[in-house]
């Protein structure tokens, strides 16, 4: 369960989306090796609300498989996966956890 006290400032550092309801966050998981990027993603997603977006930037190519697998298992959606300047970027939409 999210802790409200620590949650409030977290939401302030994201960007509002078009509808002003959900937020977009970033997670820098570069130079971490699998499964650490997955663990960091998991811990960050636990602090977010359903519908929020999390953009994970990683350098380990293992995340191409591992983050989508983690999302499928845990009820989140991968919106897109792309490579940019040698980094791998995975955009996740947080699900309800069901």
């Amino acid at each position, binding site marked *: 369960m999210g802790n409200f006290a620590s949650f409030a400032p977290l939401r302030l550092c994201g960007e509002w989306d078009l509808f002003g309801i959900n937020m977009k966050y970033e997670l820098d998981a570069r130079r971490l090796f699998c*499964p650490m990027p997955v663990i960091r993603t998991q811990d960050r997603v636990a602090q977010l609300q359903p519908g929020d977006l999390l953009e994970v930037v990683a350098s380990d190519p*293992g995340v191409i*498989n591992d983050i989508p697998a983690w999302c499928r298992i*845990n009820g989140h959606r991968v919106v897109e996966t792309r490579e940019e300047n040698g980094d791998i970027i995975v955009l996740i939409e947080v699900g309800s956890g069901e």
Partner: protein
Amino acid sequence: MTQQRKAVALISGGLDSLLAAKVILEQGIHVEGINFFTGFCVEGHTHAIRKRDKARPKRNNALWSAEQLGIKLHIIDIVEEYKDVLLNPKHGYGANMNPCLDCKIFMVHKALEWAQKNGFDFIITGEVIGQRPMSQRKETMPVVARESGAEDRLLRPLCAKNLPPTLPEREGWVDREKLYNFSGRNRKPQMALAKQFGFEDYASPAGGCCFLTDEAYSRKLIDLWKGRGNREYEMDDIMLLKVGRHIRPAPHYKLIVSREEGENNFLLGYRKQFIHLFTTSHPGPLALLDGEPSEADLELAARIVARYGKGRTAEQVTVEVHFPDGESRTLEVTPLLPHEVKEEWMV
């Protein structure tokens, strides 16, 4: 209405933990998986380093298992806490630096804490009596249950019938008759059960779960501790032991020489933490130097690095040495001949 009972399953990515969780799921129990990352786990890692593995990133077998089972998986970072398990195992080590029994106790204990926090009733593992010489023996089964604190909330579905009934069995949450009595090193019963459940393409049944069972890796770890004069280690150390040739020409310093482009790039990421050397007159590897070398040591290190480059037969090779503080110098050296790289230097 009867209460929906919940079990947390230790998922390693191997076949046994997959089957154990499936057996309990089949009995209508709500199961979620937990997977512990010690830093030494075989899952992940090396595909990030070696170039030839990059084209085909390896799957994480714990995630794969959870997906096959249709359960959630919680991956827990225990790198820091695990240090004490590795450095001070009450029950000692296995054939190499693997403190399997203490490791099992620790993981079951962590799973118990997680279960209590999240309202789960019991813990499942894929342990089978006699499967592993150190941690999975008839005598160690109660040790794990007792020392982890899980006591009779620890259920091993694959060999439960060879053990006294646990709480979930006594309370009728699970039907003991539908559990198994596997024992010994024979893998056939597990393979048959996998077939029955329709599991294919599972991870190598005999695969160890971590690098600490590996002889060469354990040797490098012991060498690292000896070289430093203490047994501390960080995640970077764990990673670097998996990369390159490790050469220790003297007790106070060691070279890590890359073997291919992927390792080169990987080691490059550590250039701000270590002295690093590379040849400039000829193509060659990148090497990190861990320790405090004298001038003469640096010269020898440069000759070793030159020996692994394209200029190995040249009379003179130019080697650049860079220090973490940004300083650098250039050395002109004669590459060592293959027989001059002493066997006892190779870690």
